[in-house]
């Protein structure tokens, strides 16, 4: 039972991290990335091959390229970097297309990636995927399974906390403000000299890094990763989480991750089997679909809407007025700034 709780907590942390990544891209900067799951997948694969050790060293039951066994925090960091690089590539590729094609293009890129990984078996072990990825630090810690899973919960929570502060900083910084401007009106932002393409690349890379780290944390916990784990439907679920929770709101995104990914997807897995497992699976997807459409219809701002930042307009701002030439100064004029 405890193991269930810790597993769910780890999943929650990982999902929240991934949804925050998507929130940077979509909620903050308005990048329509339908290949989002690719970032999580790349992070997971990176972390897996960097902990599994050389491909030839495991009796040859799974094959992949490169392969190393780096010490603990490195695979996760490299996973973030790899996902960020993919984000930059996405950004450069999509620099020349409009918003709608961006969605289609990223969708297609994710589909192509899954096809390539499945077909090229020697690349990342094909459809079977990578398995028995060692959990980090197990040989050093010497603790029971339960204690270890609690430690992992704490670790994931710390990473989430770190991500939270960095995201809050970003949202309040001028950079975050410009990103919101791009989201609200790309052309207006471009017309005042903002580098829209560059900001998109930054959003894709930054959000991608978060998603990549979440994928790395996931694969190090569950030990396996295969093409079945990152079908395009997963991207759709991530968007559902943002729409239900609240676009552009950190707490909202986290709440959405909890409602969609945990309440609807993970919890039923631990319930006793009532009937055919696949029926439950189908019902989950239908519930998510109806929930998302319902939210888009009745509450498009989500459970926790983005707080519109505004400057306090009730406070009178003393401004220097431009004096017409030849008049005497009449003192400061109290003006209300809009």
């Amino acid at each position, binding site marked *: 039972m405890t193991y269930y709780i810790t597993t769910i907590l780890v999943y929650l942390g990982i999902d929240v991290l991934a949804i925050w990544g998507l929130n940077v891209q979509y909620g903050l900067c308005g990048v329509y990335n339908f290949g989002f799951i690719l970032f999580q997948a790349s992070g997971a694969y990176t972390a897996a091959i960097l902990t599994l050790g050389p491909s030839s060293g495991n009796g040859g039951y799974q094959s992949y390229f490169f392969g190393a066994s780096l010490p603990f925090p490195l695979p996760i960091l490299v996973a973030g970097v790899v996902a960020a690089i993919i984000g930059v590539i996405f950004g450069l590729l999509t620099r020349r297309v409009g918003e709608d094609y961006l969605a289609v293009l990223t969708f297609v890129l994710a589909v192509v990636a899954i096809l390539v990984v*499945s077909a090229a078996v020697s690349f990342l072990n094909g459809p079977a995927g990578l398995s028995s990825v060692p959990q980090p630090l197990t040989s050093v810690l010497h603790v029971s399974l339960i204690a270890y899973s609690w430690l992992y919960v704490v670790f994931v929570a710390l990473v989430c906390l770190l991500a939270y502060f960095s995201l809050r900083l970003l949202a309040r910084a001028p950079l975050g403000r410009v990103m919101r401007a791009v989201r609200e009106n790309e052309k207006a932002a471009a017309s005042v000299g903002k580098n829209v393409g560059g900001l998109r690349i930054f959003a894709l890379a930054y959000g991608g890094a978060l998603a990549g780290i979440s994928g790395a944390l996931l694969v190090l916990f569950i030990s396996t990763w295969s093409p079945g784990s990152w079908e395009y439907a997963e991207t759709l679920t991530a968007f559902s989480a943002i729409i239900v929770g609240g676009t552009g709101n950190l707490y909202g995104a986290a709440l959405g991750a909890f409602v969609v990914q945990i309440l609807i997807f993970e919890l039923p897995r631990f319930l006793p089997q009532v009937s055919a497992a696949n029926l439950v699976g189908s019902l989950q997807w239908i519930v998510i679909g109806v929930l998302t459409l319902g939210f888009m219809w009745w509450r498009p701002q989500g459970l926790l809407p983005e707080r519109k930042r505004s400057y306090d307009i009730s406070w009178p701002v003393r401004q220097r007025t431009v004096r017409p030439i030849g008049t005497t100064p009449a003192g400061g004029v109290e003006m209300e700034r809009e």
Partner: protein
Amino acid sequence: MSILISAVGFGLVTAAVTALAAVGFTLQVGISNVFNFSYGAVMITGTYIGYAVNSAGGGLAAACLAGAAAGAVLSALANRLLFVRFIGRGVNRFGMLIVCLQFAVIVQNLLQAIAGDTFFTYNLSAEPPIGFLKSVDFILDPTQVTIIILAVVVIAGLTLLLEMTRLGRAMRATAGNSSLARACGIRTARIIDITWLISGGLCGLAGVIFGYSVGAFQSSSGTDFLTVVFAATMLGGLGRPLGAALGALVIGIAMSVLAVYIQSDMTQVAALGILILIILFRPRGLFGSAVSTKELAT
């Protein structure tokens, strides 16, 4: 050489399925400016309906009619009850993608809940390949030949409808500029409904012959196939039915011929590679586009 010729033959079958689907898809983009990601799910619904008819002992014609009818009704209803309303609420085009995809997921999983999570295969009567085709190494059976002829006839008929009839003119006018069309006395709402019925019928029909031409299918096969339909549509230029049919011909034969040289599961990658290149470098398609990228972007 003979292997190439038979590859072209099979490519024609793939092209026929893709062409029917792509023509319907491009009609929908043209008339409603909705990039309908649920198209694959509607298509596979047609496949399932056709399968039901097929298992009950119905022939190709009955299965096609049933599948087309199901596709037509489902598409028109989805447009009326879902897409039009969400657009009316001011949901932007990206939001519409999510609406379409969620609708696709709902349809797909309903199918899976009803029919079960297994692969299905149509019962094909084992007829020998047609004699005159055998002599030129075309190893197609009568069903496949019928599929190709059916696709050609349907697309030709649709082209005539669009170019020659009042209804077709009204459809093109509505696709071009719906408010102007309305001002000219065209009942655009009705024309849009009719277009969705026709395109949905094409979609359902494509689903049935998809079922006949592939070995096995399941509820998610439609959305997987949709990416190939995208490729054909984009190649031909969005909103251009004939362009989509030509694009399908290119993609179908290219995939089939490539399968001779490269790993067969990489052929779809090749089709999608073409799609990516088209989006990046020729977003208006090889033959230009009725709906320009600029119009789409706004």
